[in-house]
Protein backbone atom coordinates (compact mmCIF):
# COMPACT_ATOMS: atom_id res chain seq x y z
CA UNK A 1 0.00 0.00 0.00
CA UNK A 2 1.55 3.28 -1.07
CA UNK A 3 1.50 6.40 1.04
CA UNK A 4 -0.36 8.30 -1.68
CA UNK A 5 -3.27 5.92 -1.62
CA UNK A 6 -3.39 5.89 2.14
CA UNK A 7 -3.93 9.63 2.21
CA UNK A 8 -6.99 9.28 -0.02
CA UNK A 9 -8.56 6.20 1.50
CA UNK A 10 -7.85 4.34 4.70
CA UNK A 11 -7.39 0.59 4.36
CA UNK A 12 -10.46 -1.60 4.88
CA UNK A 13 -11.17 -5.32 4.58
CA UNK A 14 -14.56 -4.59 3.01
CA UNK A 15 -14.83 -5.00 -0.76
CA UNK A 16 -16.36 -2.79 -3.41
CA UNK A 17 -14.94 0.63 -2.58
CA UNK A 18 -13.72 1.54 -6.05
CA UNK A 19 -16.77 0.19 -7.80
CA UNK A 20 -19.18 1.91 -5.39
CA UNK A 21 -17.40 5.27 -5.35
CA UNK A 22 -16.79 5.15 -9.11
CA UNK A 23 -20.46 4.51 -9.85
CA UNK A 24 -21.53 7.19 -7.35
CA UNK A 25 -19.30 9.80 -8.97
CA UNK A 26 -20.30 8.81 -12.51
CA UNK A 27 -24.04 8.92 -11.80
CA UNK A 28 -23.75 12.14 -9.81
CA UNK A 29 -21.57 13.75 -12.48
CA UNK A 30 -23.69 12.80 -15.48
CA UNK A 31 -27.09 13.56 -14.01
CA UNK A 32 -26.43 16.46 -11.66
CA UNK A 33 -23.05 18.15 -11.97
CA UNK A 34 -22.68 18.35 -15.77
CA UNK A 35 -26.25 19.64 -16.38
CA UNK A 36 -25.93 22.19 -13.54
CA UNK A 37 -22.61 23.52 -14.83
CA UNK A 38 -24.14 23.78 -18.31
CA UNK A 39 -26.41 26.47 -16.87
CA UNK A 40 -23.46 28.53 -15.67
CA UNK A 41 -21.53 28.05 -18.91
CA UNK A 42 -24.59 29.06 -20.93
CA UNK A 43 -24.59 32.49 -19.27
CA UNK A 44 -21.10 33.10 -20.69
CA UNK A 45 -22.80 33.58 -24.07
CA UNK A 46 -24.12 36.82 -22.57
CA UNK A 47 -21.95 39.89 -22.10
CA UNK A 48 -21.80 41.29 -18.57
CA UNK A 49 -24.02 44.31 -19.40
CA UNK A 50 -26.39 41.95 -21.22
CA UNK A 51 -26.51 39.64 -18.19
CA UNK A 52 -27.07 42.58 -15.85
CA UNK A 53 -29.88 43.95 -18.02
CA UNK A 54 -31.59 40.53 -17.96
CA UNK A 55 -31.42 40.05 -14.20
CA UNK A 56 -32.24 43.64 -13.18
CA UNK A 57 -35.21 44.51 -15.39
CA UNK A 58 -38.12 45.92 -13.33
CA UNK A 59 -40.34 42.88 -13.87
CA UNK A 60 -37.58 40.50 -12.71
CA UNK A 61 -36.68 42.67 -9.71
CA UNK A 62 -40.36 42.79 -8.68
CA UNK A 63 -40.39 38.98 -8.83
CA UNK A 64 -37.32 38.71 -6.55
CA UNK A 65 -39.01 40.99 -4.04
CA UNK A 66 -42.13 38.84 -4.07
CA UNK A 67 -40.37 35.45 -4.11
CA UNK A 68 -37.79 36.23 -1.44
CA UNK A 69 -40.01 38.57 0.61
CA UNK A 70 -42.96 36.16 0.77
CA UNK A 71 -40.57 33.25 1.44
CA UNK A 72 -39.00 35.13 4.36
CA UNK A 73 -42.39 35.99 5.82
CA UNK A 74 -43.71 32.45 5.30
CA UNK A 75 -40.61 30.94 6.94
CA UNK A 76 -41.01 33.32 9.91
CA UNK A 77 -44.66 32.35 10.38
CA UNK A 78 -43.66 28.69 10.10
CA UNK A 79 -40.93 29.23 12.70
CA UNK A 80 -43.53 30.40 15.25
CA UNK A 81 -46.29 27.93 14.46
CA UNK A 82 -43.84 25.09 13.70
CA UNK A 83 -42.36 25.45 17.17
CA UNK A 84 -45.86 25.51 18.66
CA UNK A 85 -46.88 22.35 16.79
CA UNK A 86 -43.63 20.57 17.74
CA UNK A 87 -44.12 21.58 21.39
CA UNK A 88 -47.71 20.34 21.50
CA UNK A 89 -46.80 17.05 19.77
CA UNK A 90 -43.90 16.37 22.15
CA UNK A 91 -45.25 17.65 25.48
CA UNK A 92 -48.97 16.98 25.48
CA UNK A 93 -50.96 13.80 25.08
CA UNK A 94 -54.31 13.95 23.32
CA UNK A 95 -56.44 11.56 21.26
CA UNK A 96 -55.28 11.28 17.64
CA UNK A 97 -51.80 12.61 18.37
CA UNK A 98 -50.09 10.01 16.16
CA UNK A 99 -52.42 10.81 13.25
CA UNK A 100 -51.74 14.54 13.63
CA UNK A 101 -48.02 13.82 13.83
CA UNK A 102 -48.22 11.93 10.53
CA UNK A 103 -50.40 14.54 8.82
CA UNK A 104 -47.76 17.24 9.45
CA UNK A 105 -45.81 15.71 6.56
CA UNK A 106 -48.74 16.15 4.15
CA UNK A 107 -47.12 19.12 2.34
CA UNK A 108 -44.10 16.88 1.58
CA UNK A 109 -46.25 14.05 0.25
CA UNK A 110 -48.94 16.00 -1.60
CA UNK A 111 -47.94 16.89 -5.18
CA UNK A 112 -47.47 20.65 -5.48
CA UNK A 113 -49.96 21.04 -8.32
CA UNK A 114 -52.65 19.40 -6.18
CA UNK A 115 -51.81 21.69 -3.26
CA UNK A 116 -51.97 24.63 -5.65
CA UNK A 117 -55.43 23.99 -7.03
CA UNK A 118 -56.78 22.94 -3.62
CA UNK A 119 -55.56 26.14 -1.95
CA UNK A 120 -56.97 28.18 -4.82
CA UNK A 121 -60.37 26.52 -4.42
CA UNK A 122 -60.35 27.09 -0.64
CA UNK A 123 -59.19 30.72 -0.77
CA UNK A 124 -61.07 31.89 -3.89
CA UNK A 125 -63.78 34.45 -3.20
CA UNK A 126 -66.45 31.74 -3.18
CA UNK A 127 -64.24 29.23 -1.34
CA UNK A 128 -64.65 27.79 2.17
CA UNK A 129 -62.15 30.21 3.71
CA UNK A 130 -62.06 32.76 0.89
CA UNK A 131 -65.74 33.72 1.29
CA UNK A 132 -65.59 34.67 4.99
CA UNK A 133 -62.28 36.46 4.39
CA UNK A 134 -63.76 38.35 1.43
CA UNK A 135 -66.64 39.43 3.70
CA UNK A 136 -63.98 40.94 5.97
CA UNK A 137 -62.49 42.69 2.94
CA UNK A 138 -59.43 40.42 2.63
CA UNK A 139 -58.69 39.01 -0.82
CA UNK A 140 -56.31 36.04 -0.74
CA UNK A 141 -56.45 34.16 -4.04
CA UNK A 142 -54.84 35.92 -7.04
CA UNK A 143 -52.96 38.40 -4.81
CA UNK A 144 -49.50 38.35 -3.17
CA UNK A 145 -51.30 37.16 -0.02
CA UNK A 146 -52.19 33.98 -1.92
CA UNK A 147 -48.50 33.44 -2.67
CA UNK A 148 -47.81 33.75 1.07
CA UNK A 149 -50.50 31.20 1.96
CA UNK A 150 -49.09 28.65 -0.52
CA UNK A 151 -45.55 29.15 0.80
CA UNK A 152 -46.72 28.74 4.42
CA UNK A 153 -48.41 25.49 3.38
CA UNK A 154 -45.37 23.92 1.71
CA UNK A 155 -42.93 25.10 4.42
CA UNK A 156 -44.91 23.88 7.43
CA UNK A 157 -43.15 20.53 8.08
CA UNK A 158 -39.56 21.85 8.09
CA UNK A 159 -39.52 23.64 11.46
CA UNK A 160 -41.70 20.98 13.12
CA UNK A 161 -39.37 18.20 12.01
CA UNK A 162 -36.15 19.96 13.02
CA UNK A 163 -37.37 21.21 16.43
CA UNK A 164 -39.34 18.08 17.43
CA UNK A 165 -36.33 15.74 18.03
CA UNK A 166 -34.52 18.40 20.08
CA UNK A 167 -37.55 18.89 22.32
CA UNK A 168 -37.85 15.12 22.73
CA UNK A 169 -34.24 14.85 23.90
CA UNK A 170 -34.33 17.92 26.13
CA UNK A 171 -33.37 17.45 29.74
CA UNK A 172 -36.43 18.12 31.86
CA UNK A 173 -34.18 18.75 34.87
CA UNK A 174 -33.16 22.13 33.43
CA UNK A 175 -36.75 23.30 33.20
CA UNK A 176 -37.59 21.94 36.62
CA UNK A 177 -34.56 23.72 38.05
CA UNK A 178 -35.75 26.97 36.46
CA UNK A 179 -39.25 26.39 37.86
CA UNK A 180 -38.00 25.69 41.35
CA UNK A 181 -35.77 28.78 41.24
CA UNK A 182 -38.94 30.77 40.74
CA UNK A 183 -38.92 31.40 36.99
CA UNK A 184 -42.31 31.93 35.38
CA UNK A 185 -43.27 29.59 32.49
CA UNK A 186 -42.58 32.43 30.05
CA UNK A 187 -39.16 33.11 31.55
CA UNK A 188 -38.39 29.38 31.43
CA UNK A 189 -39.32 29.29 27.76
CA UNK A 190 -37.28 32.33 26.78
CA UNK A 191 -34.22 31.63 28.93
CA UNK A 192 -34.03 27.83 28.97
CA UNK A 193 -36.02 26.25 26.16
CA UNK A 194 -35.50 28.76 23.36
CA UNK A 195 -31.68 28.77 23.55
CA UNK A 196 -31.69 24.96 23.39
CA UNK A 197 -33.89 24.69 20.32
CA UNK A 198 -32.47 27.78 18.58
CA UNK A 199 -29.98 26.01 16.23
CA UNK A 200 -32.66 23.54 15.12
CA UNK A 201 -35.21 26.34 14.78
CA UNK A 202 -32.88 28.37 12.55
CA UNK A 203 -32.10 25.28 10.46
CA UNK A 204 -35.80 24.63 9.93
CA UNK A 205 -36.38 28.29 9.15
CA UNK A 206 -33.63 28.33 6.49
CA UNK A 207 -34.83 25.05 4.97
CA UNK A 208 -38.37 26.42 4.73
CA UNK A 209 -37.08 29.64 3.21
CA UNK A 210 -34.94 27.83 0.62
CA UNK A 211 -37.83 25.57 -0.37
CA UNK A 212 -40.25 28.49 -0.63
CA UNK A 213 -37.93 30.64 -2.76
CA UNK A 214 -37.78 28.01 -5.50
CA UNK A 215 -41.37 26.79 -5.20
CA UNK A 216 -43.47 26.75 -8.36
CA UNK A 217 -46.35 24.27 -8.48
CA UNK A 218 -48.29 25.24 -5.39
CA UNK A 219 -47.92 28.97 -6.06
CA UNK A 220 -48.80 29.55 -9.72
CA UNK A 221 -52.46 28.59 -9.41
CA UNK A 222 -53.23 30.84 -6.44
CA UNK A 223 -50.91 33.73 -7.38
CA UNK A 224 -52.83 35.13 -10.33
CA UNK A 225 -49.42 35.79 -11.92
CA UNK A 226 -49.89 39.51 -12.56
CA UNK A 227 -46.59 41.02 -13.80
CA UNK A 228 -44.97 43.34 -11.23
CA UNK A 229 -47.57 42.32 -8.62
CA UNK A 230 -47.89 38.58 -8.09
CA UNK A 231 -45.36 36.98 -10.42
CA UNK A 232 -42.72 34.75 -8.74
CA UNK A 233 -39.16 34.33 -10.06
CA UNK A 234 -39.53 30.66 -11.13
CA UNK A 235 -42.48 31.74 -13.29
CA UNK A 236 -40.31 34.42 -14.93
CA UNK A 237 -37.90 31.63 -15.97
CA UNK A 238 -40.77 29.60 -17.44
CA UNK A 239 -42.17 32.63 -19.29
CA UNK A 240 -38.79 33.43 -20.82
CA UNK A 241 -38.37 29.78 -21.86
CA UNK A 242 -41.77 29.76 -23.54
CA UNK A 243 -40.66 32.81 -25.55
CA UNK A 244 -37.47 30.90 -26.49
CA UNK A 245 -35.43 33.52 -24.60
CA UNK A 246 -32.93 30.90 -23.39
CA UNK A 247 -30.17 33.35 -22.40
CA UNK A 248 -32.65 35.43 -20.37
CA UNK A 249 -34.11 32.35 -18.64
CA UNK A 250 -30.60 31.09 -17.86
CA UNK A 251 -29.44 34.44 -16.46
CA UNK A 252 -32.35 34.58 -13.98
CA UNK A 253 -31.82 30.89 -13.16
CA UNK A 254 -28.16 31.56 -12.33
CA UNK A 255 -29.16 34.30 -9.88
CA UNK A 256 -31.53 31.87 -8.18
CA UNK A 257 -28.92 29.09 -8.17
CA UNK A 258 -26.35 31.36 -6.51
CA UNK A 259 -28.89 32.27 -3.81
CA UNK A 260 -29.73 28.57 -3.31
CA UNK A 261 -26.05 27.64 -2.95
CA UNK A 262 -25.54 30.39 -0.37
CA UNK A 263 -28.59 29.10 1.50
CA UNK A 264 -27.24 25.55 1.29
CA UNK A 265 -23.95 26.69 2.85
CA UNK A 266 -25.91 28.46 5.60
CA UNK A 267 -27.98 25.34 6.23
CA UNK A 268 -24.85 23.17 6.46
CA UNK A 269 -23.26 25.59 8.93
CA UNK A 270 -26.46 25.74 11.02
CA UNK A 271 -26.77 21.95 11.05
CA UNK A 272 -23.17 21.64 12.22
CA UNK A 273 -23.98 24.07 15.03
CA UNK A 274 -27.20 22.21 15.88
CA UNK A 275 -25.38 18.86 15.99
CA UNK A 276 -22.64 20.18 18.27
CA UNK A 277 -25.21 21.81 20.55
CA UNK A 278 -27.29 18.65 20.57
CA UNK A 279 -24.24 16.54 21.47
CA UNK A 280 -23.42 18.92 24.33
CA UNK A 281 -26.99 18.74 25.61
CA UNK A 282 -26.82 14.99 25.61
CA UNK A 283 -23.44 14.93 27.33
CA UNK A 284 -24.63 17.17 30.20
Amino acid at each position, binding site marked *: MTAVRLTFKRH*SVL*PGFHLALGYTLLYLGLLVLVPLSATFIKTFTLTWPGFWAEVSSPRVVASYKLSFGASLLAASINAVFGTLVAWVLVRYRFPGRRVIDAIVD*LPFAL*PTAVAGIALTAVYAENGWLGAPLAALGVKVAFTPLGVLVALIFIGLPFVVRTVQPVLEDMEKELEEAA*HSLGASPLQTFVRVILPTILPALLTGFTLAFARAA*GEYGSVIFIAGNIPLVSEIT*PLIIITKLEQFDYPGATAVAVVMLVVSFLLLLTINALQGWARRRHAQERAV
Partner: protein
Amino acid sequence: MPRNGRCDMTTAAALDPPIVHRREIPWVPLALTTLALGYLALLLLVPLAAVFVEALRKGAAYYFQAIAEPDARSAIQLTLVAAGIAVPLNLIFGVTAAWAIAKFDFRGKTLLISLIDLPFSVSPVISGLIYVLLFGLQGWFGTWLSDHDLRIVFAVPGIVLATIFVTFPFVARELIPLMQAQGREEEEAAVVLGANGWQTFRRVTLPNIKWGVLYGVILCNARAMGEFGAVSVVSGHIRGETNTLPLHVEILYNEYNFAAAFACASLLALLALVTLVIKTVVEHRYLKEQ
Protein backbone atom coordinates in the same frame (compact mmCIF):
# COMPACT_ATOMS: atom_id res chain seq x y z
CA MET B 1 -36.87 17.87 1.31
CA PRO B 2 -33.51 18.71 2.78
CA ARG B 3 -31.84 16.91 5.65
CA ASN B 4 -33.74 17.04 8.92
CA GLY B 5 -36.64 18.33 6.87
CA ARG B 6 -38.77 15.51 8.11
CA CYS B 7 -38.88 12.97 10.82
CA ASP B 8 -35.68 10.91 10.86
CA MET B 9 -36.27 7.28 11.63
CA THR B 10 -33.82 7.54 14.48
CA THR B 11 -35.68 10.39 16.12
CA ALA B 12 -39.31 9.55 15.39
CA ALA B 13 -42.09 9.67 17.93
CA ALA B 14 -40.88 9.44 21.47
CA LEU B 15 -42.36 6.63 23.43
CA ASP B 16 -41.82 8.06 26.89
CA PRO B 17 -44.75 8.42 29.25
CA PRO B 18 -46.65 11.70 29.51
CA ILE B 19 -44.75 14.48 31.22
CA VAL B 20 -46.38 16.02 34.24
CA HIS B 21 -45.47 19.59 35.03
CA ARG B 22 -45.93 20.46 38.64
CA ARG B 23 -46.11 24.20 38.10
CA GLU B 24 -47.87 24.31 34.75
CA ILE B 25 -50.71 26.82 34.57
CA PRO B 26 -53.74 24.55 34.06
CA TRP B 27 -55.26 26.21 30.98
CA VAL B 28 -51.99 26.59 29.03
CA PRO B 29 -51.73 23.03 27.63
CA LEU B 30 -55.36 23.11 26.52
CA ALA B 31 -54.98 26.54 24.89
CA LEU B 32 -51.75 25.64 23.08
CA THR B 33 -53.11 22.29 21.89
CA THR B 34 -56.29 23.91 20.60
CA LEU B 35 -54.30 26.61 18.81
CA ALA B 36 -51.90 24.10 17.19
CA LEU B 37 -54.65 21.72 16.11
CA GLY B 38 -56.80 24.56 14.78
CA TYR B 39 -53.85 25.86 12.77
CA LEU B 40 -53.12 22.43 11.29
CA ALA B 41 -56.78 21.83 10.50
CA LEU B 42 -57.16 25.17 8.68
CA LEU B 43 -53.85 24.94 6.84
CA LEU B 44 -53.70 21.22 5.97
CA LEU B 45 -57.01 19.45 6.40
CA VAL B 46 -59.28 22.03 4.79
CA PRO B 47 -57.40 22.01 1.43
CA LEU B 48 -57.13 18.19 1.56
CA ALA B 49 -60.88 17.87 2.09
CA ALA B 50 -61.49 20.40 -0.68
CA VAL B 51 -59.74 18.12 -3.20
CA PHE B 52 -62.21 15.30 -2.60
CA VAL B 53 -65.29 17.51 -2.33
CA GLU B 54 -64.48 19.31 -5.59
CA ALA B 55 -63.67 15.99 -7.28
CA LEU B 56 -67.12 14.59 -6.49
CA ARG B 57 -69.00 17.82 -7.17
CA LYS B 58 -70.48 16.49 -10.43
CA GLY B 59 -71.19 13.05 -9.02
CA ALA B 60 -69.50 9.68 -8.97
CA ALA B 61 -70.25 8.89 -12.63
CA TYR B 62 -68.49 12.04 -13.82
CA TYR B 63 -65.61 11.31 -11.45
CA PHE B 64 -64.96 7.86 -12.85
CA GLN B 65 -65.37 9.10 -16.40
CA ALA B 66 -62.77 11.83 -15.75
CA ILE B 67 -60.15 9.42 -14.46
CA ALA B 68 -60.87 6.79 -17.11
CA GLU B 69 -60.83 8.92 -20.27
CA PRO B 70 -57.92 8.19 -22.67
CA ASP B 71 -55.86 11.32 -21.95
CA ALA B 72 -56.08 10.71 -18.20
CA ARG B 73 -55.16 7.06 -18.69
CA SER B 74 -52.12 7.91 -20.79
CA ALA B 75 -51.09 10.53 -18.21
CA ILE B 76 -51.33 7.92 -15.45
CA GLN B 77 -49.31 5.53 -17.59
CA LEU B 78 -46.54 8.06 -18.23
CA THR B 79 -46.40 8.93 -14.52
CA LEU B 80 -45.97 5.23 -13.71
CA VAL B 81 -43.28 4.85 -16.39
CA ALA B 82 -41.31 7.88 -15.16
CA ALA B 83 -41.46 6.77 -11.52
CA GLY B 84 -40.81 3.15 -12.58
CA ILE B 85 -37.50 4.19 -14.12
CA ALA B 86 -36.44 6.98 -11.74
CA VAL B 87 -37.10 5.18 -8.44
CA PRO B 88 -35.09 1.97 -9.16
CA LEU B 89 -32.17 3.98 -10.61
CA ASN B 90 -32.06 6.27 -7.58
CA LEU B 91 -32.43 3.23 -5.31
CA ILE B 92 -29.35 1.58 -6.85
CA PHE B 93 -27.49 4.88 -6.65
CA GLY B 94 -28.56 5.47 -3.04
CA VAL B 95 -27.42 2.05 -1.83
CA THR B 96 -24.13 2.30 -3.76
CA ALA B 97 -23.36 5.82 -2.54
CA ALA B 98 -24.26 4.91 1.06
CA TRP B 99 -22.01 1.82 0.88
CA ALA B 100 -19.04 3.91 -0.33
CA ILE B 101 -19.65 6.74 2.16
CA ALA B 102 -20.62 4.78 5.27
CA LYS B 103 -18.31 1.78 5.02
CA PHE B 104 -15.06 3.50 3.96
CA ASP B 105 -12.96 6.49 4.97
CA PHE B 106 -11.75 8.73 2.19
CA ARG B 107 -11.03 12.38 1.62
CA GLY B 108 -13.73 14.71 0.35
CA LYS B 109 -16.56 12.71 1.91
CA THR B 110 -18.33 15.77 3.34
CA LEU B 111 -18.21 17.49 -0.04
CA LEU B 112 -19.60 14.39 -1.73
CA ILE B 113 -22.54 14.25 0.72
CA SER B 114 -23.29 17.94 0.06
CA LEU B 115 -23.19 17.37 -3.71
CA ILE B 116 -25.62 14.46 -3.42
CA ASP B 117 -28.01 16.78 -1.55
CA LEU B 118 -27.67 19.49 -4.18
CA PRO B 119 -30.82 18.69 -6.24
CA PHE B 120 -33.00 19.44 -3.18
CA SER B 121 -31.83 23.03 -3.03
CA VAL B 122 -32.43 23.70 -6.72
CA SER B 123 -35.79 25.12 -7.78
CA PRO B 124 -37.87 22.53 -9.68
CA VAL B 125 -38.09 24.92 -12.61
CA ILE B 126 -34.29 25.08 -12.84
CA SER B 127 -34.11 21.28 -12.55
CA GLY B 128 -36.03 21.12 -15.81
CA LEU B 129 -34.20 24.04 -17.41
CA ILE B 130 -30.78 22.41 -17.12
CA TYR B 131 -31.87 19.53 -19.37
CA VAL B 132 -33.41 21.93 -21.89
CA LEU B 133 -30.05 23.73 -22.02
CA LEU B 134 -28.27 20.43 -22.69
CA PHE B 135 -30.68 18.63 -25.00
CA GLY B 136 -33.00 21.33 -26.38
CA LEU B 137 -32.68 22.58 -29.96
CA GLN B 138 -30.46 25.47 -28.86
CA GLY B 139 -28.65 23.24 -26.34
CA TRP B 140 -25.17 21.70 -26.34
CA PHE B 141 -26.29 18.42 -27.91
CA GLY B 142 -29.33 19.89 -29.68
CA THR B 143 -27.94 19.86 -33.22
CA TRP B 144 -26.43 16.41 -32.87
CA LEU B 145 -29.69 15.01 -31.49
CA SER B 146 -31.85 16.52 -34.23
CA ASP B 147 -29.37 15.28 -36.89
CA HIS B 148 -29.88 11.77 -35.57
CA ASP B 149 -33.62 12.26 -35.21
CA LEU B 150 -33.50 11.77 -31.44
CA ARG B 151 -35.70 13.65 -29.00
CA ILE B 152 -34.98 14.00 -25.31
CA VAL B 153 -36.57 17.29 -24.34
CA PHE B 154 -40.31 17.64 -24.99
CA ALA B 155 -40.42 13.85 -25.03
CA VAL B 156 -40.50 10.98 -22.54
CA PRO B 157 -36.69 10.75 -21.92
CA GLY B 158 -36.64 14.38 -20.75
CA ILE B 159 -39.47 13.71 -18.31
CA VAL B 160 -37.60 10.69 -16.93
CA LEU B 161 -34.35 12.71 -16.60
CA ALA B 162 -36.09 15.57 -14.77
CA THR B 163 -37.82 13.07 -12.47
CA ILE B 164 -34.49 11.39 -11.67
CA PHE B 165 -32.95 14.77 -10.87
CA VAL B 166 -35.62 15.97 -8.44
CA THR B 167 -35.75 12.61 -6.61
CA PHE B 168 -31.99 12.04 -6.76
CA PRO B 169 -31.08 12.33 -3.02
CA PHE B 170 -34.07 10.57 -1.37
CA VAL B 171 -32.71 7.04 -0.87
CA ALA B 172 -29.07 8.10 -0.42
CA ARG B 173 -29.78 10.63 2.32
CA GLU B 174 -31.92 8.12 4.21
CA LEU B 175 -29.29 5.37 4.06
CA ILE B 176 -26.07 7.36 4.61
CA PRO B 177 -26.76 8.37 8.24
CA LEU B 178 -28.41 5.01 8.99
CA MET B 179 -25.44 2.97 7.68
CA GLN B 180 -22.93 5.32 9.32
CA ALA B 181 -24.66 4.81 12.66
CA GLN B 182 -24.61 1.02 12.21
CA GLY B 183 -20.84 0.91 11.75
CA ARG B 184 -18.79 -1.71 9.92
CA GLU B 185 -18.09 -4.47 12.44
CA GLU B 186 -20.78 -6.85 11.21
CA GLU B 187 -19.68 -6.62 7.59
CA GLU B 188 -16.02 -6.92 8.54
CA ALA B 189 -16.77 -10.05 10.55
CA ALA B 190 -18.64 -11.57 7.60
CA VAL B 191 -15.75 -10.87 5.21
CA VAL B 192 -13.18 -12.25 7.65
CA LEU B 193 -15.30 -15.40 7.97
CA GLY B 194 -15.07 -15.85 4.20
CA ALA B 195 -18.23 -14.26 2.79
CA ASN B 196 -17.81 -12.51 -0.55
CA GLY B 197 -18.95 -8.94 -1.17
CA TRP B 198 -22.40 -9.81 -2.48
CA GLN B 199 -23.09 -12.34 0.29
CA THR B 200 -22.01 -9.78 2.89
CA PHE B 201 -24.32 -7.17 1.43
CA ARG B 202 -27.32 -9.47 1.02
CA ARG B 203 -27.09 -11.36 4.32
CA VAL B 204 -25.63 -8.74 6.66
CA THR B 205 -26.17 -5.21 5.36
CA LEU B 206 -29.54 -5.55 3.67
CA PRO B 207 -31.47 -6.91 6.69
CA ASN B 208 -30.09 -3.99 8.72
CA ILE B 209 -31.15 -1.31 6.28
CA LYS B 210 -34.40 -2.74 4.88
CA TRP B 211 -36.68 -0.28 6.69
CA GLY B 212 -34.46 2.63 5.69
CA VAL B 213 -34.56 1.47 2.07
CA LEU B 214 -38.35 1.15 2.13
CA TYR B 215 -38.67 4.58 3.75
CA GLY B 216 -36.45 6.22 1.14
CA VAL B 217 -38.22 4.44 -1.72
CA ILE B 218 -41.74 5.51 -0.76
CA LEU B 219 -40.70 9.14 -0.30
CA CYS B 220 -38.79 9.02 -3.59
CA ASN B 221 -41.82 7.50 -5.31
CA ALA B 222 -44.25 10.09 -3.94
CA ARG B 223 -42.11 12.92 -5.25
CA ALA B 224 -41.46 11.15 -8.57
CA MET B 225 -45.17 10.67 -9.25
CA GLY B 226 -46.12 14.14 -8.03
CA GLU B 227 -43.36 16.28 -9.55
CA PHE B 228 -44.75 19.24 -11.42
CA GLY B 229 -42.33 22.16 -12.02
CA ALA B 230 -39.35 20.28 -13.44
CA VAL B 231 -41.48 18.00 -15.58
CA SER B 232 -43.53 20.95 -16.78
CA VAL B 233 -40.41 22.59 -18.27
CA VAL B 234 -39.24 19.54 -20.22
CA SER B 235 -42.62 18.08 -21.17
CA GLY B 236 -43.85 20.26 -24.01
CA HIS B 237 -47.40 19.46 -22.83
CA ILE B 238 -48.40 17.21 -25.71
CA ARG B 239 -51.74 15.70 -24.70
CA GLY B 240 -51.80 11.94 -24.65
CA GLU B 241 -48.03 11.82 -25.22
CA THR B 242 -45.91 13.84 -22.80
CA ASN B 243 -48.39 14.66 -20.05
CA THR B 244 -47.88 13.22 -16.61
CA LEU B 245 -50.79 13.13 -14.18
CA PRO B 246 -49.87 16.42 -12.42
CA LEU B 247 -49.54 18.13 -15.83
CA HIS B 248 -52.88 16.69 -16.89
CA VAL B 249 -54.41 18.22 -13.76
CA GLU B 250 -52.99 21.60 -14.75
CA ILE B 251 -54.36 21.41 -18.31
CA LEU B 252 -57.85 20.46 -17.14
CA TYR B 253 -57.77 23.20 -14.52
CA ASN B 254 -56.69 25.85 -17.04
CA GLU B 255 -59.53 24.72 -19.30
CA TYR B 256 -61.92 25.46 -16.40
CA ASN B 257 -62.79 21.77 -16.24
CA PHE B 258 -62.51 21.91 -12.45
CA ALA B 259 -64.38 18.71 -11.58
CA ALA B 260 -62.17 16.62 -13.87
CA ALA B 261 -59.01 18.41 -12.67
CA PHE B 262 -59.88 17.66 -9.04
CA ALA B 263 -60.86 14.08 -9.92
CA CYS B 264 -57.36 13.46 -11.29
CA ALA B 265 -55.86 15.45 -8.40
CA SER B 266 -57.72 13.21 -5.94
CA LEU B 267 -55.75 10.21 -7.25
CA LEU B 268 -52.53 12.05 -6.39
CA ALA B 269 -53.94 13.07 -3.00
CA LEU B 270 -54.75 9.40 -2.31
CA LEU B 271 -51.16 8.55 -3.24
CA ALA B 272 -49.99 11.14 -0.71
CA LEU B 273 -52.20 9.66 2.03
CA VAL B 274 -51.04 6.11 1.28
CA THR B 275 -47.44 7.38 1.40
CA LEU B 276 -48.01 8.94 4.82
CA VAL B 277 -49.60 5.74 6.15
CA ILE B 278 -46.74 3.52 4.91
CA LYS B 279 -44.19 6.02 6.22
CA THR B 280 -45.78 6.01 9.69
CA VAL B 281 -45.98 2.21 9.76
CA VAL B 282 -42.34 1.89 8.68
CA GLU B 283 -41.22 4.31 11.39
CA HIS B 284 -43.18 2.36 13.95
CA ARG B 285 -41.78 -1.02 12.85
CA TYR B 286 -38.27 0.39 12.84
CA LEU B 287 -38.58 1.76 16.38
CA LYS B 288 -40.02 -1.55 17.58
CA GLU B 289 -37.07 -3.49 16.16
CA GLN B 290 -34.56 -1.22 17.86
